[in-house]
């Protein structure tokens, strides 16, 4: 079985909610839409206070080239345009909507009928990309990069294949798995659309072997579709990282930044994004709801939900039996790369794949000890970096040296910190170094 070449760790899986069927979450009383749910410029609001909106009404338009529009997931009245504490912990501008009823825009096709690409020969690659752009689809894996940009590679690079990221290597999270089990046909049409959009005839779905049912299901569905291959992968974190997945599936290594996977011919999209693309193109449904896993060892009934964006996380936790007693760590995302939250009212956004509640004892960090030079972090780093050195240099503010040591290649997967027997806060230090060095590089290129 295939996997990526260097580094990686094996965290405990804890896929507690894997076999729990998805249910639609209850509508919130008030939905909150932060204006920056994606990488790039924040969206610009186009609604006013008191305006009546329906499900699927445009709330905010893209605020630049790298940006995405935001649509309402509920019907009701715009209560205010204010700020909300989002997953970063800081207050960011957001649109508040008081929910009344559940009235959808008429342009959205709400039927369950499967529309295939064969039924719609009129869809050109440009039309597909345009519909994806208009629908505000962003990467559903967590980072939230606007999808239409990934589908229009720079002229210097030529795409040769589409790779669908169905790895879900983060512990606890099962939302992609449930999506695959429940909407396999739609996902396959989504892959067809993505392949047509980037004009290639080669597609791969990378699935880790801890999801045998999903592998079997897709192999069965794609039995007579030789152009899309299901690639079972060994279980290893962080296989869901773009560069690791490209290496695992087609054995090509992406060079250091600013190179991106398309420089070696691969367009990588999350399986959730493939589904969102299907809905956007075939059903004219903008991105306003997504699959979210609510999980944690102490959560009474871990589950998977189809959630309207803007729903506060506490509502989902309450639907699973409420917040456990005692100190808890609340994460947007999984335990490896998830963002720790300081408020339970943080709304579900485009990139929220999971709400994970770790008990205080599990989450508590151990006292850091001196580095014993065992180099476990070096062998765990999937990017071939030397985390102990980067952390030390960052602590000493040696920015020039950090740049030479390729700190910008770090994908912040946390494997180094996970594996460190001395419990050193490696990633904390590296992250500071990375943001500082990136800032220096940006300032330098701005000067030129």
């Amino acid at each position: 079985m295939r996997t990526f070449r260097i580094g990686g760790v094996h965290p405990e899986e804890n896929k507690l909610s894997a076999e729990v069927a998805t249910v639609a979450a209850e509508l919130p009383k008030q939905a909150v839409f932060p204006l920056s749910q994606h990488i790039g410029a924040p969206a610009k609001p186009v609604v006013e206070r008191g305006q009546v909106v329906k499900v699927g009404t445009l709330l905010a338009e893209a605020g630049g080239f790298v940006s995405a529009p935001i649509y309402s997931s509920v019907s009701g009245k715009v209560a205010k345009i204010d700020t909300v504490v989002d997953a970063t912990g800081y207050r960011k501008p957001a649109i508040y909507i008081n929910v009344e009823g559940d009235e959808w825009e008429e342009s959205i096709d709400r039927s369950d009928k499967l529309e295939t690409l064969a039924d719609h020969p009129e869809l050109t690659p440009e039309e597909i990309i345009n519909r994806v752009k208009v629908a505000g689809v962003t990467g559903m894996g967590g980072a939230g990069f606007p999808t239409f940009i990934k589908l229009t590679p720079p002229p210097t690079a030529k795409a040769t294949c589409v790779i669908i990221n169905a790895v879900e290597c983060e512990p606890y999270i099962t939302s992609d798995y449930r999506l695959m089990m429940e909407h396999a046909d739609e996902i396959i049409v989504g892959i067809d659309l993505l392949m047509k959009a980037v004009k290639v005839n080669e597609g791969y779905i990378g699935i880790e072997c801890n999801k045998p049912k999903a592998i079997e299901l897709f192999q069965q569905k794609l039995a007579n579709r030789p152009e899309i291959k299901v690639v079972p992968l060994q279980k290893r974190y962080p296989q869901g990282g773009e560069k690791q997945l490209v290496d695992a599936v087609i054995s090509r290594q992406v060079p250091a930044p600013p190179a991106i996977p398309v420089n070696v011919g691969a367009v990588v999209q999350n399986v959730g994004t493939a589904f969102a693309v299907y809905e956007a193109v075939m059903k004219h449904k903008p991105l306003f709801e997504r699959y979210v896993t609510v999980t944690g060892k102490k959560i009474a009934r871990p589950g998977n939900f189809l959630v309207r964006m803007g729903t506060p996380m506490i509502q989902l936790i309450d639907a699973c039996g409420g917040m456990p007693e005692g100190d808890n760590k609340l994460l947007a995302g999984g335990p490896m790369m998830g963002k720790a939250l300081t408020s339970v009212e943080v709304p579900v956004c485009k990139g929220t794949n999971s709400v994970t509640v770790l008990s205080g004892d599990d989450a508590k960090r151990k006292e850091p000890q001196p580095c014993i030079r065992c180099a476990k972090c070096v062998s765990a780093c999937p990017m071939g970096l030397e985390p102990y050195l980067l952390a030390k240099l960052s602590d000493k503010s040696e920015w020039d040296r950090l740049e030479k040591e390729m700190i910008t290649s770090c994908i912040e997967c946390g494997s180094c910190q996970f594996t460190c027997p001395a419990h050193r806060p490696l990633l904390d230090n590296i992250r500071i170094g990375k943001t500082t060095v990136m800032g220096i590089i940006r300032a330098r290129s701005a000067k030129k």
Partner: protein
Amino acid sequence: MNVILTAVIVLGAVGLIAAVVLFFVSKKFAVKEDPRIALVNEVLPGANCGGCGFPGCGGMASACVKAADQGSLEGLNCPVGGAVVMGKVASILGMEATASDPKVAVVRCNGSCENRPRIAEYDGLKTCRAVHACGAGETGCCNGCLGCGDCVAACKFDAIHINPTTGIPEVDEEKCVACGACVKACPRAIIELRLKGKNNRRVWVGCVNQDKGPAAMKACKVSCIACGKCVKECKFDAISLTGNVSYIDDEKCKACRACMKVCPRECIYDANFPKSIKEVMAAEAERKAAAEAKAKAAAEAKAQAESAPAPKVSPTQPKEKEE
């Protein structure tokens, strides 16, 4: 014996040749340094704090000499040595010293454990930079002090320390030389270099919270809510409101403390005044009450005097008004 003699002669010859070569090389490749740089360097404090903006005192010395050659020492200031050292530097270089008012570092946050409730616990790397990069910190305030002491670590003069009861850094005015190291170290720009002021008396807004009123109020008991009362009260046009927080311009401020009297959040602070503003206000209130009582007594006396000749008019007038 012969062996020793040979060795001495050979080594002596090698030494002699090397000495001759080195003599000529040192003449040929001598680096000429302006002797004034060494002189200036001598009078500088030698702390190498970088407060002047140059890499250490050596850098400052050469910058001073260079500036003197161009005709002016303006813009150059050693925050540690102050006017005394700059005067010496100027006299070495045959220039006139440019005077600059002394400054001091001021911490613009009073979000102590008591004032600002903790809503979360952070247990990652304990530096302000790390906490700031990771999120808003342990409290509901996105702009306030994180209390991990990056400023303390940056200070080379032992002039700033975290107060263990409040968790907020405090500046030792005697030791602070206004080098600005803490200002650079603070990821949230809470510390500011402000003019020491006349008799060291100064007034500043001790809050940098940029949230709107309700959010700021919820986050901290002593947060600025941008109500603008201080702006209206200031007679010297020294206070401005930007980004939901008010700011006192230290160049314009006359330290009259009128703003402190009206601030409903008590987030304007003063230093080195003989009496606290509360004492002043209490005294003023007392005086006012006394004056009022006096005025009332006088008015009553007057009313009594007036009511004697015309007793029927005064009681009926208010009644008519009531109706």
